[in-house]
């Protein structure tokens, strides 16, 4: 044994980190949650603020994409009208698995103050939702916290195809 033995697996001896496939895949997934730009009403303004420099979503790897095919999470920010319901379903179907949905604000959660004929009473009537953010509108901090909770949720998943695809029915 050499006197000055290097413990290669510790203290930065080698650029090696030991982990499991699940962890590394989930690390990648949870830190590159690309969000579909989905501002439907006033909540969309708060979503934009979260993406802009003051709150800076890029730090989380959350970058807004204009196409559902490149997005991992759909942030439903605003009032979902009945006319629009079929389109949200169509866009959700275009997203690739694994996909998540954050329902942002009272309107997306429950219809909010719009207790009328034209508003869908909660977007979970149309698509499965992972996270509900309360507020009218939620502050950008709430959305940041929501994204961090979503990261935690993603890390708890298995990486393989064993994940059950989410379906409303």
């Amino acid at each position, binding site marked *: 044994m050499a006197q000055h033995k290097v413990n290669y697996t510790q203290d930065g001896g080698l650029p090696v980190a030991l982990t499991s496939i699940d962890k590394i895949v989930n690390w990648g997934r949870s830190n590159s949650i690309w969000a579909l730009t989905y501002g439907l009403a006033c909540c969309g303004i708060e979503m934009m603020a979260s993406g802009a420099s003051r709150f800076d979503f890029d730090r989380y790897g959350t970058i807004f994409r204009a196409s559902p095919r490149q997005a991992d999470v759909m942030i439903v920010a605003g009032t979902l009208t009945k006319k629009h319901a*079929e389109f949200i379903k169509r866009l959700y179907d275009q997203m690739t698995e694994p996909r998540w949905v954050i329902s942002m604000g009272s309107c997306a959660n429950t219809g909010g103050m719009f207790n009328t004929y034209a508003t*869908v009473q909660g977007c979970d009537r*149309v698509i499965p939702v992972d996270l509900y953010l309360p507020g009218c509108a939620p502050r950008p901090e709430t959305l940041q916290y929501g994204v*961090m909770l979503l990261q935690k949720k993603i890390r708890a998943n298995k990486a393989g195809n064993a994940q059950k695809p989410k379906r409303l029915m």
Partner: protein
Amino acid sequence: MRAYTPKDDVQAKSYYTDRYYVAPQVPKQEVETDEAFAADLAALKEKFEVKEAFIQMKQMIVYINANDIYGVLEFLRDELTYTQLSEMSAIDWLAKDNTFEIFYQMLSMTKRKRLRIKFFINNGDAVDSVEKLFRCADWSEREMFDMFGIEANNHPFMKRILLPYDWQGNPLLKTYPLEGDEFAAWYEVDKIYGKEARDVIGPEIRDTARVDRYDSERFARLGFEVPKGTEITGNEEPNNQDYQEEGGVFLIKKFTKESSKIIDDPQR
């Protein structure tokens, strides 16, 4: 047997009404009190039949025959300088005498006057489109069709404007409930998943104050969250949600309150 309640006005009403309340009326003035309006009305009367005319809130209101509307608006625009159609729509008087009242709000920029042309049509009748005179009437007439079901003759594209094309019902009618009829309540479910899905998805919850702590499908108790669908016993363990797991995350530093710096200076 329960007493029959008329269904001609199903809008929600305030639960308290003053028995001695008399709705205030805006006072009406003679048209002769305003020179410009009097001249306009005289010119209008030469060509068209005027049923009634008066001034309210410094605006002249003129009732005409339904068939004259195109001619009247053309005359107002070309001869009397009422070059702008600010707004037009209908008022539902179906419960009273089965008619709609249609109004056209006009503005003259040179005279600085506003006047309102009005007429009545029976339920089911169509109005003449004024889209050829004022482009803005295009969408207004479509909206009137959408909201009241009143069609406009000679309109280039007589379709719904706000609601989807396959919608049933006209929401601004007083017979239309605010929260929607059966068709509206199931619209998105029927359209996307089909009628069979009604049982699975369930009816809308319209009670905005509803909270049920034993329903873990729809509600979560803050700090005591359980997985969706769990039976709630009331002895749930506190379940404080943190944004990161206790053990830490690969390559990500955990933020702790102790290591944070609180910035007190608001002018930073």
